[in-house]
């Protein structure tokens, strides 16, 4: 019985690979199949033939993937368009799950401590002087901030820090930073400051009321279409 089934579709060929079969058998079969195809005179070889590999509920390891791709590379006119699978790793699933999610943190980040979060974060806890919160997304502040907040790590300048940050040591967005004690940086030291990177790539700030003009894209994303 064939463990690798060749099917034609409108975009080219699909190789359905039996998900329960030993990978060595699969490799042998693909190798034979390509050999047969290349010697078949009915197939026009003037332009390359695209294959899509469907592994079903099997997840190929990187080295298995590389080996199979190398089989195709032996022929000038065979090419793999994509390898598709019904399954993904837990790691990848977690990444997808956390995309666009807002994390919440209630802990106290003390002197010398460092907390890194992939995504937006809502801070209920305290950040003491010398503590640092680093987020790849936006940071929304409800707690007391005396330390450092870094939004948009490492270089996303479209991120925002929103909330009361007048006691913070530093605010950073992407690669821009501001030391609060050394400047009259804050125009608005209410609980509704918005810190952002402006068109000149300089950190600026304003009141939450001005969010629409500060970052129209973000404003619309959270439902502010008017």
């Amino acid at each position, binding site marked *: 019985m064939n463990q690798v089934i060749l099917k034609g579709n409108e975009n080219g060929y699909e190789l359905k690979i039996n998900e329960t079969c030993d990978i060595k058998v699969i490799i042998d079969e693909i190798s034979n199949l390509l050999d047969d195809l290349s010697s078949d005179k009915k197939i026009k070889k003037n332009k390359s033939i695209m294959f899509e590999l469907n592994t079903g509920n099997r997840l190929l390891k990187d080295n298995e993937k590389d080996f199979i791709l190398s089989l195709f590379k032996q022929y000038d006119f065979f090419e793999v368009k994509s390898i598709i699978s019904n399954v993904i790793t837990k790691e990848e699933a977690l990444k997808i799950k956390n995309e666009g999610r807002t994390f919440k943190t209630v802990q106290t*980040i*003390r*002197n*010398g401590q460092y907390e890194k979060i992939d995504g937006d974060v809502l801070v209920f806890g305290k950040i*003491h*002087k*010398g503590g640092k919160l680093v987020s790849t997304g936006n940071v929304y502040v409800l707690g007391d901030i005396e330390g450092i907040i870094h939004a948009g790590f490492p270089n996303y300048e479209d991120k925002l820090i929103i909330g009361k940050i007048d006691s913070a040591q530093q605010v950073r967005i992407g690669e821009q930073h501001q030391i609060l004690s050394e400047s009259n940086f804050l125009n608005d030291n209410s609980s509704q400051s918005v810190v952002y990177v402006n068109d000149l790539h300089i950190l600026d700030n304003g009141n939450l009321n001005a969010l629409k003009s500060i970052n129209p894209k973000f404003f619309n994303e959270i439902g502010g279409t008017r």
Partner: protein
Amino acid sequence: MGKAIVITSGKGGVGKTTSSANLGSALALMDKKVCLLDLDIGLRNLDVILGLDNRIMYDILDVVNGKVNLNKALVKDKRFENNLFLLPAAQNTDKNAINEEQVKKIVEELKEQFDYVLIDCPAGIEQGFLNSVAGADSAIIVTTPEISAVRDADRIVGLLEKNPLKEVPRLIINRIRPDMMDHGEVMDVDEITHHLGVDLLGIVVDDDKVIATSNHGEPIVLDSENIVSQAYRNIARRILGDDVPLMQIKTEKNGFWGKLKKTFSKNKNSF
């Protein structure tokens, strides 16, 4: 089975060793069997403050290396009958000479014989700190009202939160100068306690006599009239679980002590 308490601070010079010596002495006076464990290896001075430096024969390294057994290395303080012993630190090596497992083993062994094992932690957060907290059941964090000391205490609280001991840490605010606190030149007791988010175990005012007596190898606790002595005795009683009200200190700065009293009544649960 006794209890091991580490006395730590992060910053140096805030009074860890003085507090260890005095709390150990105070507990011994209350008829508890106490062993002081000096882990400031390379820079020992708990022995000097207790006036036991002349009597040291062996140190903790000799015990770790199996040169002598634990009881032979203990130095007895004759002023306290059979209640106070010291296991001295080694002098001619550094903090990396022993590891957490070795300390843990010694502390476990001491806990079988003593009611309290007080571990004098070195400054810093390196191996010496890790060794000191390894065998401890609870921690006393010593700070002064200085920002730098409070900042380091915060770091220590953070480290202890990441690797919690059996009991939550408690705080001693040491070397308080009432006049400065009253004038708002340093953080007050309430601010420090609130900022660190740790239960207050006690406060100790700054007094020249502490240095004067320790220079003679005599812990201040032995002078029952002294204000610092009373503070340490109160802290010792709180360690024993007694509900000790704030002592009334006769001072012209009534305003400050009034404020202080308020702080204590707020934190009454912690005593």
